[in-house]
């Protein structure tokens, strides 16, 4: 069940929030959330639930054990636990990729096994890893109740596509939580803004992205450069609006239930360096790799060579985490190179470059990162890169490219604005002005009260009849 589906919003979520609000005790609320989460997760296939239950059971068991042991035994238990959950992730996510490459190199095996990737496995595995490691580090106590740990890992708000929630962030709120009108109001806004970003903007940008970003290399080779740039821009907007929409909806639903999750995005397209971009993009993933891979490897405390090696490991893993395909590895390496250049070549010199140039430079780097991200077929990827510079022998533009731009310019403009903090800042400014001006208060009240209903109805309008519009990050 996708967040941006009619059945989710108007059946599943509507019933869930009604029942949750009717539950008086915290235990009843948690039972409601757990049952809802298991129904939500089993929607994608009952067989996937078994894999998640196994992972949770392993981490619950080892979590409890970790509190009972000290010293080397404790370390061994952690390694064993991580090995098991990473093995499960490895088998389901990477076995096909490994066999495929093995077959390419050696001819073995004759048939590459078709292993279906369980929904959200990359997300809940990382959540469980963070839990076990934090228990090992004694940052959080082990959860004695299997069901509570299952609730943490399977919580439908974020289990499928993030944000990657640390156990410590929600540990207390899973036991005791409260809501206020202001908190619910923030949740309602986040939820509806997220829904609208996905249903109205991201899905429409996807149509422009697909217009010239064809799936096979032969068709791609025929596209004019202007069309490819247009599709690239639309895809760049789509991927942010799509992914951040999911996080917005997750955070919003959490707030409506009294749960606070970490922010996952902070307007990444306003960054003026690649380092800053990764502080603003998919924050919970980059902070996971920072806290659980980069720093344990030594981070920046062991000399330049070691730091570059650590960055290499982190970015290889970041690439592979996104998918078992060489383009994702290339994507990770792409960022590794830019980050190393920024850190060790440009250094403080970066700040001397005018802000506008830095800003445009980052946008260009990010533009090409999404081109790499989009095409798993490396031949297709190369064709697009050539095509963007007119290297496929086509005219630079044609009537179809011009028409596609003309018929979507306002959509793209609104989408660009939606990638910036303009609306949020205007709302804040209006709220501040409300204290001094009656007109400002009136306007603020109207906007605040009307926008969730308006966005909800407009999203429903866009989603009706739309039978399949998965989130991009659903496949990871």
């Amino acid at each position, binding site marked *: 069940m996708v967040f941006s589906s009619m059945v989710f919003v108007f059946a599943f979520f509507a019933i869930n929030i009604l029942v949750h609000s009717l539950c008086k005790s915290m235990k009843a609320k948690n039972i409601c959330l757990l049952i809802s989460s298991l129904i939500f997760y089993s929607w994608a296939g009952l067989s996937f639930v078994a894999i998640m239950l196994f992972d949770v059971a392993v981490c619950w068991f080892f979590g409890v054990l970790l509190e009972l042991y000290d010293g080397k035994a404790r370390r061994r238990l952690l390694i064993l636990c991580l090995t098991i959950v990473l093995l499960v992730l490895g088998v389901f996510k990477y076995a096909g990729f490994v066999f495929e490459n093995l077959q390419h190199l050696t001819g073995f095996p004759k048939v590459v096994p078709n292993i279906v990737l369980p929904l959200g496995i990359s997300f809940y595995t990382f959540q469980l890893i963070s839990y076990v490691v934090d228990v090992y580090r004694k940052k959080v106590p082990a959860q004695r109740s299997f069901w509570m740990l299952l609730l943490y890992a399977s919580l439908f708000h974020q289990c499928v596509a993030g944000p990657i929630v640390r156990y410590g962030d929600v540990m207390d709120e899973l036991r005791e939580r409260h809501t206020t009108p202001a908190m619910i109001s923030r949740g309602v806004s986040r939820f509806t803004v997220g829904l609208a970003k996905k249903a109205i903007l991201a899905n429409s940008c996807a149509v422009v992205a697909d217009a010239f970003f064809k799936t096979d290399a032969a068709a791609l080779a025929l596209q004019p450069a202007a069309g490819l740039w247009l599709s690239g821009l639309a895809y760049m907007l789509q991927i942010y609006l799509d992914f951040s929409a999911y996080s917005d909806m997750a955070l919003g639903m959490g707030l409506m239930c009294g749960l606070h999750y970490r922010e996952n995005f902070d307007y990444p397209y306003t960054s003026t360096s690649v380092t800053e971009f990764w502080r603003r993009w998919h924050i919970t993933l980059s902070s996971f790799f920072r806290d659980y891979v980069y720093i344990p490897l030594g981070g920046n405390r062991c000399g330049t060579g070691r730091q570059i090696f650590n960055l290499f490991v982190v970015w290889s893993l970041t690439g592979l985490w996104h998918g078992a395909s060489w383009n994702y590895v290339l994507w990770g390496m792409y960022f590794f190179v830019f980050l190393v250049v920024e850190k060790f070549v440009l250094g403080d010199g970066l700040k001397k470059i005018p802000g506008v140039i830095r800003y445009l430079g980052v946008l260009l780097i990010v533009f090409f990162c999404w081109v790499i991200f989009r095409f798993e077929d490396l031949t297709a990827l190369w064709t697009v890169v050539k095509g963007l510079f007119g290297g496929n022998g086509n005219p630079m533009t*044609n009537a179809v490219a011009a028409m596609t731009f*003309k018929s979507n310019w306002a959509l793209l403009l609104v989408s660009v604005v939606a990638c910036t903090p303009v609306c949020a800042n205007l709302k804040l400014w209006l709220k501040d002005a409300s204290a001094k001006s009656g007109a400002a208060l009136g306007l603020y009240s109207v906007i605040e009260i009307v926008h969730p209903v308006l966005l*909800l109805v407009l999203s429903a*309008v866009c989603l009706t009849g739309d039978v*399949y519009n998965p989130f991009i990050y659903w496949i990871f």
Partner: protein
Amino acid sequence: MKKIFRTIYKIKNALFFTALGILAVIGAMWFARPETSVIEKRELTKFPKLTLSGVLDGSFASGVDKWYADTYPLREQFISGSYRLQALYGDRSQQIVNGGAGNKGDDIPDVPNKGDPTDGPTEGPTEGPSDTPTQGDSHDVTEPPTEAPTDAPTEAPTEAPTDAPVTGEIMGPLFVSGDTAYELYYFNRSSAESYATAINRAHQILGDNVNVYSLAIPLGSGILLDTSTQSSLGISDQRKAIEYINSLMDPGVHALNIFDNMKAHSSEYIYFRTDHHWTALGAYYAYQEFCKSKGVEAHALDQFKTMISPGFLGSFYSDARSSAMKANPDTVTAYYPMGTNSMMFTQTDGQVIAWNIIMDVNSYDPGSKYYCFSGSDEPYAYAHNPQITDGSSVVVLKDSFGNAFIPFLIDHYEYIYWIDFRMYNDSLSAFVAEKGIDDVIFCFNMNNVTNSWSIDRINKLLS
């Protein structure tokens, strides 16, 4: 101030949850869920069957997702709203819809200048053959109607066919310009060659006593758009495509090329603006070419009585939902055959229905007015013209473009059969032998002529 904000939040929350609740209750009204979409001409997604394997692999749940979104009680209003919203995305007076922008057809090989094989009636019979064996009895109606069909064109039945087609045509991307849309055409060489091979095979199987005609109908984009627009859209040259396909056909096949005659009349109302079909007037110009090839005289248009039905919003409108189209719908004009207006058709469930060749569709909904021709898309249909008694017969293997063409054939044959190649499952050669057919006309639009699925269907009918 805090108190004011708190009140604002409370009102906001109450309003949001009320709206969510109302839309949820509407969604729960299963009895109000539509089952078909008149505008989209399709059955909507059905609630999936509950099976253990479906629950395990998630297909049951994804079926519920599709069913819920596709049959939401306010779907038509919401979808219409969605198109209105999309109209704000930019200047949509000219746009490509249905995806597919920037495709390119295969190169069409040049045809050596050896003369048009379709010219003149020299290869075809000058009259309907009279020496076909076992003709008389073979045309007896094997599926008698339950009621005698009426010849009166305006009489019952008046309702749209109950089993409106769900297959539709294979429709590619559209170029929408103002209140008119054009279907973009991309040539597929391999399918085109397979089509020619299939027609040659039909000719060989059916033998020299049966005249085989191939009528490839150009899409409106090839006739109505000027060369530079076609070139800027990157679409294939349909004249060249038809010439190439015809050049591959055996000399014994009557490979018609109606392109030039259609082009000569391109300023007339020969294609609908809001629908992918040609008009009856467009079909008439194809009929003129057919008559030339057959060696008979085409009836003049003013000899026919007409049925006129304004307010037609066809498949292009259903896909583009353009407000300009809605403001200026098409008018359907149909020409009553002179010999008879009675026909029978057999539905996919085997039921035989008496119908009119030209149906008055003034009471039909705006999206169904093309159903006025030839009983629309049914697997099998026939008509008997009592004004002709020479035993002459024709079978038209057709897609929905053929529907507008068939009425003109009625006044040239005693027995007229038509088969929709998408739904008919028996052997064409057995049918031709059984009925002692004189002429077989393959009558498809260019999308079907160069589409592998269509060729497979044609080959299946020939096997």
